[in-house]
């Protein structure tokens, strides 16, 4: 047996097992503990299903439903916005392209908190966007964009979009431009070229962007917490709230387990859908 690959993989494997697998197993175990009485995170040596069954009531199911709906909406919006943007980037020449790419990647050098802070101020009830709309007479009362579903959605979309655009841009660049121009030359309309050439060839990238939006949307925390409404929140927000505001660590762990399960199920469903639509398994011959 050659020891070299094991030595090479060793540090990364140690990090992953120690700081990813162990914490996840710990979360699962904690979700079966009885809540702490007094000190610590939980009562050691106990087993209970109460934390999990407590989530099966209407409130818990509503939380899961909201999280799945939120992730789906994020995935749809991210794909719908990033795909045209990626195609637009492809149509640009070098200097304009560099400018546009810089604009898209710049926010990723800033903390997530900064972007959300900027959005909070820009779109708030007395923010410049509302003031502009009021002066132009488009609305008579300020639009309530923050502290609701719209705010949470737009916050998360702003955070995920740059990744999706770059991912799709790389994908559409790989496409041979001859295919589209020859289809045009053979008499296909613009729409036909898009429908028959551009869209099918971008499918792997679109699927990946959808996956990204779904997973990160379902795990969203900062957007819903800072820009969303306090009543309707995602599971991630509830995890933090249960743990830090109420000190119910086992309950929070049970929510975490549910979130991971929900994400896994949704990903599997998306993959199934993809295979159904494209007629071949993902990652097959390309």
């Amino acid at each position: 047996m050659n020891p070299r690959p094991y030595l090479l993989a060793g540090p990364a494997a140690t990090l992953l097992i120690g700081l990813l697998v162990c914490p996840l197993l710990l979360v699962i175990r904690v979700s079966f503990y009885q809540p702490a009485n007094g000190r610590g995170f939980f009562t050691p040596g106990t087993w209970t299903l109460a934390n999990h069954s407590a989530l099966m009531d209407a409130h818990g199911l509503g939380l899961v439903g909201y999280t799945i709906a939120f992730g789906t909406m994020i995935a749809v919006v991210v794909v719908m916005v990033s795909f045209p943007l990626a195609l637009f980037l492809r149509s640009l020449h070098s200097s304009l392209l560099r400018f546009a790419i810089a604009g898209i990647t710049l926010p990723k050098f800033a903390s997530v908190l900064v972007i959300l802070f900027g959005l909070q101020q820009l779109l708030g009830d007395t923010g410049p966007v509302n003031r502009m709309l009021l002066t132009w007479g488009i609305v008579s009362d300020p639009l309530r964009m923050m502290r609701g579903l719209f705010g949470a959605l737009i916050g998360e979309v702003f955070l995920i979009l740059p990744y999706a655009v770059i991912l799709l841009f790389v994908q559409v660049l790989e496409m041979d431009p001859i295919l589209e121009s020859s289809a045009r030359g053979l008499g296909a309309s613009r729409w036909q070229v898009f429908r028959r050439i551009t869209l099918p060839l971008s499918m792997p990238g679109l699927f990946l962007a959808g996956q990204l939006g779904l997973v990160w949307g379902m795990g969203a925390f900062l957007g819903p917490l800072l820009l969303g409404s306090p009543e309707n929140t995602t599971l991630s927000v509830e995890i933090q709230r249960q743990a830090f505001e109420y000190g119910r660590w086992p309950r929070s762990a049970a929510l975490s387990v549910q979130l991971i399960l929900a994400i896994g199920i949704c990903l599997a469903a998306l993959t199934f859908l993809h295979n159904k639509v494209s007629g071949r398994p993902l990652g097959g011959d390309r």
Partner: protein
Amino acid sequence: MSPYHIFRTLRIVAGFFVVGCLVAPLLYAVWLSFSPDSFLTPPERDWSVRWYQAFATDSRWSMALSRSLMVGLACAVLSVLAGAMLAYGMERYLFRGKGTLGILVLLPMCIPPAVLGMGLLPLFYAVGLWGSLLGLVLGHAMMCLPIVFLIVRSKLRQMNPDHEMAARGLGATPSQVVGRIIIPLWGSALVVGAAAAFAVSFNESMVTLFLATPTTETLPAMIWPQLRYSPSPLVAVASVISVIIALGVASGLGGIVKLVGAKSRNKPG
């Protein structure tokens, strides 16, 4: 103008409008940071740097800044070392557990940060890493692993493995192969990976929040309560400074890439 030209102009306008929207929150935060008073209204005539002075004179903020820098740099070094070694091992060797490891290394991207924080806090508490910067470094390095791994692996896939074989065949020791072949040819991917890891760690706020204690208060941990309960221009200042540092480190590392590239081009062969 033909309809096609109108369509093209409209497309450019619409495209740059979307790009503009993406940058707008950041630019607005920068503008707010020059506010002369404590209200969150952007300055129009009288710009002021008083919030920058307030930031510079408060030792809590400067401590947080230096902690963030240290954690970011340590995380970059650690995740590049571990990630590059893993990518190399996975690309060049067949070994047992390779498939599992391939999935495992991408998993940090799929696990919501809230769940990660939820698991890491009791774990760190149990092993005594709670309240230490080392815990933060390790956590961030694990989160950056997939990014570094993907960047280095895509570079490795473009490279010809024969270079290493040839060097070995001609009598180079493994350390000579690393020094003469791997670092010059893949150096750029390592540096890009390091820059990405630094930017992620420097700006990471979720796991930082879960693990935050007064002794590990980094920049995001300082911004957080302010943002949630009493937003002031000081938040904007902290944000601007963190963006400048992240950009500075990234472009500094970019400069190294260019230098390495120029050097390896000048070498014969």
